[in-house]
């Protein structure tokens, strides 16, 4: 190897070092901008085809919405019930651990009721629905994208967002709050079970205490959050699904990403709403 050209070669190399960093940064920013653009487009299309076009004579696919409701809602009732029951029991145990020392065991009812309806019911439901339905949405749309089925819909003049996303959105906007109600009730029942057995609280007292502790507001804000979570989960699943350009391997990756992203965004939205309700209700 001749040593002559070496200094000459290293000069452009050192000059291109900042160039490489800036280049990498620029690519990152550009791809982020592209992602934001794609996300905005899906949100925009979904809102349009759900809330605007039905009033312009392009009805929502009603039967498909029902079948999505069965898949996303009805079929998750068992798992949500079981988990909520256990969480209710756990909550009651944890609350009793502290309250017993102050001789205020009856307040277990307040703690279980309020924390479930305001927070844990909606968020547990949202996390389970993210894992069950959000991932299924991403996988379904992603594999349709990979098999050119989405392109086929477009060329038939069928808008893919209207055909695929709107029924799912409708299903989750209804089913996540509905599942949250089930989660709330079953969780409170779990707390009740523990209280009347292990804690030896009189069933009627526990019941009365729960009813007195819960405000309509608590339940309502919880359901409002659940509704928002349903929207977040659908949009993330759809976004990740439509992002697929390659084959099966990418479908898998996007499916995983949809679960992680939707849980993350659900927590962010939760933080936002909880902050809002804390100051404004």
């Amino acid at each position, binding site marked *: 190897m001749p040593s002559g050209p070496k200094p000459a070669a290293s000069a452009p190399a050192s000059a291109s070092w900042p160039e490489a960093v800036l280049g990498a940064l620029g690519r990152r920013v550009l791809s982020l901008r592209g992602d934001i653009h794609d996300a905005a487009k899906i949100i925009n299309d979904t809102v349009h085809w759900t809330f605007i076009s039905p009033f312009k004579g392009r009805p929502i696919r009603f039967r498909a919405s029902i079948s999505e409701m069965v898949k996303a809602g009805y079929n998750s009732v068992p798992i949500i019930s079981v988990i909520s029951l256990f969480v209710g029991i756990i909550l009651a145990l944890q609350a009793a651990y502290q309250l017993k020392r102050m001789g205020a065991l009856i307040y277990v009812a307040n703690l279980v009721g309020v924390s479930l309806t305001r927070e844990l019911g909606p968020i547990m439901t949202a996390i389970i629905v993210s894992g069950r339905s959000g991932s299924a949405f991403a996988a379904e749309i992603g594999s*349709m994208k990979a*098999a050119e089925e989405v*392109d*086929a819909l477009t060329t*038939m*003049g*069928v808008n893919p967002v209207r055909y695929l996303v709107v029924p799912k959105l409708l299903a989750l906007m209804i089913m996540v709050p509905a599942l949250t109600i089930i989660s709330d009730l079953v969780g409170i029942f779990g707390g009740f079970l523990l209280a009347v057995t292990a804690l030896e609280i009189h069933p009627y007292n526990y019941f009365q205490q729960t009813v007195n502790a819960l405000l309509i507001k608590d339940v309502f804000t919880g359901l409002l959050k659940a509704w928002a979570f349903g929207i977040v989960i659908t949009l993330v699943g759809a976004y990740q699904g439509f992002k697929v350009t390659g084959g099966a391997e990418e479908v898998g990756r996007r499916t995983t990403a949809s679960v992680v992203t939707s849980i993350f965004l659900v927590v962010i939205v939760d933080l936002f709403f909880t902050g809002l309700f804390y100051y404004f209700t």
Partner: protein
Amino acid sequence: METAIEIAGLQTHYGSREILKNVCASIPRGKTTVILGGSGCGKSTLLKHLIGLLKPTKGQILINGSDITRMDEDEMNEVRKKMGVLFQGAALLNSLTLGDNVALPIREHTRLNESTIKIMVRMKLDQVGLSGFENFFPSQLSGGMKKRAGLARALALDPEMIFFDEPSAGLDPVTAAGLDELILKLRNVFRMTSIVVTHEIESVFKISDYVIMLDAGNVLYQGDLAGLKASDHPRIRMFLERQPEQETYSPDDYFKIIAGD
């Protein structure tokens, strides 16, 4: 010769990579036009622009005189009602039966009642030799049957023009020939404008009235089949005579490529 589609100065990119450089071509009405070219030269990309799935960087595509690159979604959908597309993998919706797949465009664009739609679906399936398969799901069919079902769906609304992306790829010779027959029949009986992307030379000789050959993002040849056969352009000859690409690297260059310098 009346033109159905006029492509003018079409330039396209995927990201920053230029795929089509400057494509100018016209596709005659009521004829079968074949788009030819080597693998990766941009045939599918061109097709996706013709059916409005991708927007070009530059250039125009005039279908029946109006530029589809400037249309909004609603105007484009009006044009799409007159188009049928058969995708490379048939692209049937896997969650629907064959009958529902074929009925989908009819349900979407017409207000016919269910019994009429049923009859239309049976007719279309019969036309491609799939009568009796209405209640089968795509996963229960062979590749060739899927292709034919995809064709039935593309024909559902009696389109003026129909696009095929590699109709015979992955099919046995007999089924492929059957599909060629169907394409011929569409032209002869229904005077349909067909645009077929393929690299099966035999099928080109059989079905084409007009040939557009792409090479490296440009149009290498356009005209009738006789002209193509008579052409003495070396790349066209290579394609028609199935010759391998000439070795263009010197041994030194080749060493540089594999060493990654």
